[in-house]
């Protein structure tokens, strides 16, 4: 449990057990939010069901607030938290591919697995397709490396780029999220498709 300094020195098996339990909790949360239904997920793009954005942004801002407070009170060492490295081209290209895949398949990687676990056949093929894609990426990496490594910016954080404190950034993020939730509710009313939403 690395960055948590209040619980240092756990044996490896305990770390893995905690990871397992956290994963199980995540899967449970996905399923009970109804994310195993591809119609619910695709609803995010058509506007009639905006649960996806609400769940994921709520999770993000809770984690944001939690990690900043824990760090402030000395329980979490943010120096040790891994920050993803930013490759501009790869992010954009990957985002486009994933977005297209999401709406075509009706799943994203995590929800695909949770749908598979309740026995959906289309989820099975979706996950197999995902694994094939990852395998192809690894095999063709030497060819696409220039694309994958282009425009490297390092592990940047938004608050660094904007020159504001992490706390202020957290507040702005939360405000933006709340505005988005409100807009999402409006969209649900506007793009309502009761023939679908009544069934999922």
């Amino acid at each position, binding site marked *: 449990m690395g960055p948590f300094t209040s619980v240092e020195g756990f044996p490896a098996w305990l770390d893995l057990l905690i990871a397992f339990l956290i994963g199980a909790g995540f899967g449970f949360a996905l399923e009970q939010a109804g994310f195993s239904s591809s119609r619910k997920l695709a609803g995010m793009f058509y506007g009639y069901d905006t649960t996806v954005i609400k769940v994921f942004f709520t999770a993000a801002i809770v984690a944001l607030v939690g990690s900043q*407070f824990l760090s*402030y*009170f*000395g329980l979490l060492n943010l120096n040790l938290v891994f920050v993803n490295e930013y490759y501009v081209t790869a992010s954009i290209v990957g985002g486009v591919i994933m977005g297209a895949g999401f709406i075509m398949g009706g799943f994203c990687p995590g929800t695909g697995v949770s749908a598979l676990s309740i026995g959906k056949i289309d989820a099975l093929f979706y996950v197999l397709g995902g694994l094939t894609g990852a395998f192809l990426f690894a095999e063709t990496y030497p060819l696409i490396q220039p694309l994958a490594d282009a425009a490297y910016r390092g592990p940047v954080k938004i608050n660094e780029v904007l020159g504001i404190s992490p706390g202020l950034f957290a507040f702005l993020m939360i405000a933006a999220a709340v505005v988005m939730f409100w807009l999402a509710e409006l969209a649900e009313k506007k793009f309502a498709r009761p023939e679908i939403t009544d069934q999922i």
Partner: protein
Amino acid sequence: MQNWKEYSLVIAIVLVIIAMVLVKTLTSGHFRNDAEKWAGPSFNRSNLITAGQLKAFTGEALVVDVTAKGDFLKQYSGAISIPASSLLDKTNQRKLRAHNGSIILVSDDPALSARMWMLLSQMGYTHLFILSDSSDIEVLNYKFQEEGVKDVH
């Protein structure tokens, strides 16, 4: 939002958090934010002071001997002995914080002085110096040459 009672849980949580934050900010004896800022004087070596400079020092200087046995007490007038291992004791911290001028750390081991300097600096001490024999403390005394090594000093 007229039903304050409904929001009582929210308000309670927020007040608890505010209380914890206030307690944290008002206590001293912990590290300050922004390590780079508090490590600043060490980047341009402005935290070093030689014996000669110390003699010419006009301000209020407190010499602190961080060795275990206080070997340097006699050499400097008004010096106090705070062995490194008890540097963070409440009484010693009070002495250090109470002093209004510069604090100068002295010991026979430059490694120890350097470490104590960084530790104290990160706790918010300013005007903190290390007494060193020479001002070119990080200069290499040797020259690397093709055939081997030549002694420059």
